[in-house]
């Protein structure tokens, strides 16, 4: 189930022919968005190594064509990944690049020289480190670190573990210099063979215990922010260690991961790449009948549906609800999309005693007789997120097929017949992979719900009166360590309201805190309905003595229509004047998703400077005499006085 990625559709028999047709279209003037959606769709199948390799090559060829030509903005995120570690890594490289398309990342994987992982990492002039990488994945194994034999002297065992961690740490330090988006390290997958047996866990010098100790060290390194973890040990335990380690393949071809497990390993890496590039999904849209409960609410009534303890079927559907609630607690927004009368569909949420999911957990509830693709569009619009941020869970294969055909960017897991497996299928697919967990995540689902209430409130009064009645408070701060994780998250997740779509990692954000040539601003917005948390980020760079360039300006779409753009500009101007700048330079770089801000600088009164062929444009604002408009919010924080003055 896990190793074969059963949440994906089986590959079509004519996969290679479909890919060939797509490759032919790469040579036409088809827009990049179309080509890349088709590439990603082909990746949404159970693919063996050959097909992953074919897809990887097609992706690489297309990336070169797109970079060179006039196909319009790219749809998928880009990432150049170095890959080093134990044994032959080329097959893993194919699996990563092929799987990355599934997670909406067009990754180019550069493999280090065979057997040269340590020198590749430590030598600044190595081919790998000179390859212009964004990130590096290090896949060590116990053999490479000298942990393949027991060391039954306690002190010697501890020294061996310490040495292994030092080696890894030194490699990470070297690689970090040439991997601006970060170094990923895979945990060691423990070999199967017991020495004592269960007692291995207690004997510090057993291979099993030493591997566990190194993995604990890697977790600590990840917690300190030095690396991003890719938990191969966990993946191997899901699928079975005996299947992961294939000694015959190791001896013959130095494959540290059995070929059968490479699709899973590739997908594990691809999920993390997606999380780093902000393509993880944000919302879970749930069907009702036979998905959240057993039976048809319209026929069976609240008393007749199966949900809750007491029947296997009821418990299976309850498990789906429990998973949805758990996802909600970490920031995944929940919505409902059902073919039903609305009042009938809502009844179990208020009247059924065993339902875990209640009205208050659902940000958008759509129940009607329209088709699901149309309703999913409406849900994405109501939540102000892209369709590619949605996961749609539905037991009905016909509905799933319709949504896949109409909206290939919506993730739709395959489900087996038995609802007992629904929750696991959804969880194992890795749609909501994260590389951090910030305070904002804990309350995000509530924030979306509150937004719906604000929208309803807005309908009852004039706009200015509505905004004034919100009692908005904007807190502006320079970048600081407390805001760092959330700043990086916003920078990497914001797609629509994002003027330049420049992505920076947490490490790069940290560097900006002390960069004298740059100013980072973080904005929080609170109002009478609650705290929205950090909702906007701006990075300014000194481009000449009198000019500050707006390198990045991005905002969460949750706060659109609140005049936050103008408030942000007021703070930018204040920061620029504090540095005695006379001019602000703004730039718009079109992406597949940010058309909503194409006129952003025009709306704010900037003068157009130039427009390039690819649609990008430059704008200028003279600061002399510029006055902020009357705004329906007040400022707080260390820069409040500056903005007010």
């Amino acid at each position, binding site marked *: 189930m896990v190793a074969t990625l059963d949440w994906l559709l089986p590959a079509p028999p004519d996969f*290679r022919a479909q890919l*060939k047709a797509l490759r032919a279209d790469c040579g036409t003037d088809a827009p990049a968005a179309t080509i890349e959606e088709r590439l990603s769709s082909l990746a949404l199948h159970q693919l*063996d*190594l*050959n*097909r992953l*390799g*074919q897809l990887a*090559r097609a992706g690489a060829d297309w990336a070169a064509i797109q970079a060179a030509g006039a196909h319009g903005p790219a749809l998928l995120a880009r990432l150049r990944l170095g890959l080093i570690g134990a044994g*032959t890594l*080329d*097959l893993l490289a194919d699996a990563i690049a092929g799987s990355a398309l599934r997670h909406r990342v067009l990754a180019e994987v550069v493999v280090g020289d065979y057997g040269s992982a340590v020198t590749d990492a430590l030598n600044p002039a190595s081919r790998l480190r000179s390859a212009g990488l964004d990130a590096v994945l290090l896949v060590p194994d116990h053999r490479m670190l000298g942990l393949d034999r027991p060391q039954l002297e306690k002190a010697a065992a501890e020294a061996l573990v310490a040495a292994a961690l030092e080696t890894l740490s030194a490699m990470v330090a070297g690689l970090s210099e040439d991997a601006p988006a970060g170094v990923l390290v895979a945990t060691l997958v423990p070999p199967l063979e017991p020495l004592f047996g269960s007692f291995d866990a207690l004997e510090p010098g057993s291979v099993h215990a030493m591997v566990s100790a190194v993995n604990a060290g890697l977790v600590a390194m990840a917690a300190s922010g030095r690396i991003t973890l890719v938990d191969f040990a966990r993946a191997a335990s899901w699928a079975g260690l005996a299947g992961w380690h294939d000694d*015959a393949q190791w*001896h*013959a*071809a130095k*494959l540290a991961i059995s*070929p059968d497990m490479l699709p899973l390993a590739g997908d594990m890496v691809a999920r993390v790449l997606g999380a780093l590039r902000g393509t993880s999904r944000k919302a879970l849209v749930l069907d009702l009948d036979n998905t959240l409960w057993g039976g048809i609410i319209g026929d069976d009534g609240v008393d007749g549906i199966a949900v809750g303890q007491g029947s296997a079927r009821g418990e299976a559907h309850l498990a789906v609800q429990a998973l949805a609630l758990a996802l909600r607690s970490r920031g995944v927004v929940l919505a409902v999309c059902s073919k039903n009368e609305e009042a009938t569909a809502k009844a179990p949420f208020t009247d059924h005693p065993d339902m875990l999911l209640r009205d208050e957990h659902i940000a958008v509830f759509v129940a009607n007789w329209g088709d699901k693709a149309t309703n999913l569009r409406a849900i994405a619009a109501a939540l102000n997120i892209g369709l590619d941020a949605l996961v749609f869970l539905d037991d009905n294969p016909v509905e799933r097929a319709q949504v896949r055909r109409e909206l290939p960017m919506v993730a739709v897991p395959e489900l087996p017949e038995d609802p007992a497996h629904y929750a696991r299928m959804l969880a194992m697919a890795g749609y909501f992979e994260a590389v951090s967990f910030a305070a904002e995540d804990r309350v995000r689902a509530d924030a979306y719900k509150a937004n719906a209430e604000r929208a309803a409130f807005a309908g009852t009064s004039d706009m200015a009166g509505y905004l004034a009645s919100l009692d908005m408070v904007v807190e502006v701060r320079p970048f600081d360590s407390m805001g760092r994780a959330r700043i990086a998250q916003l920078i990497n997740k914001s797609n629509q309201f994002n003027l330049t779509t420049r992505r920076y990692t947490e490490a790069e954000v940290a560097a900006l805190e002390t960069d004298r040539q740059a100013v980072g601003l973080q904005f929080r917005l609170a109002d009478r309905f609650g705290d929205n948390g950090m909702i906007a980020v701006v990075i300014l760079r000194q481009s000449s003595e009198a000019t500050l360039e707006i390198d990045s300006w991005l905002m969460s779409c949750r706060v659109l229509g609140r005049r936050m753009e103008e408030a942000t500009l007021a703070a930018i101007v204040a920061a620029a004047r504090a540095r005695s700048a006379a001019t602000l330079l703004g730039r718009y770089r079109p992406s597949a998703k940010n058309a909503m801000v194409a006129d952003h600088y025009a709306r704010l009164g900037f003068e157009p400077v130039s427009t390039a062929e690819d649609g990008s444009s430059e704008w200028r604002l003279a600061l002399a005499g510029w006055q902020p408009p009357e705004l329906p919010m007040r400022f707080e924080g260390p820069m409040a006085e500056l903005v007010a003055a």
Partner: protein
Amino acid sequence: MTDSEIMAKVADLMVDVFDVDDLDITPATSADDIEEWDSLSHIRLMISIERAFKVKFLNEEIAELKNVGELVQVIQQKLA
């Protein structure tokens, strides 16, 4: 399975493994004849054959293979 049936199936797998269309496979075809048949795609080919025919090779059985004809013979022995 006859030798020619095995041969046809191997040829299909080669198209997938080497990712090229116009392969003319005969019993005499060897790695020297196909540009894409390098050591890495050889590993891929063996993995694909093992899976497609549901057989497992010993390393020594495939280390000395000179051409497709010999490969077909090894598969035939495994299937017998």
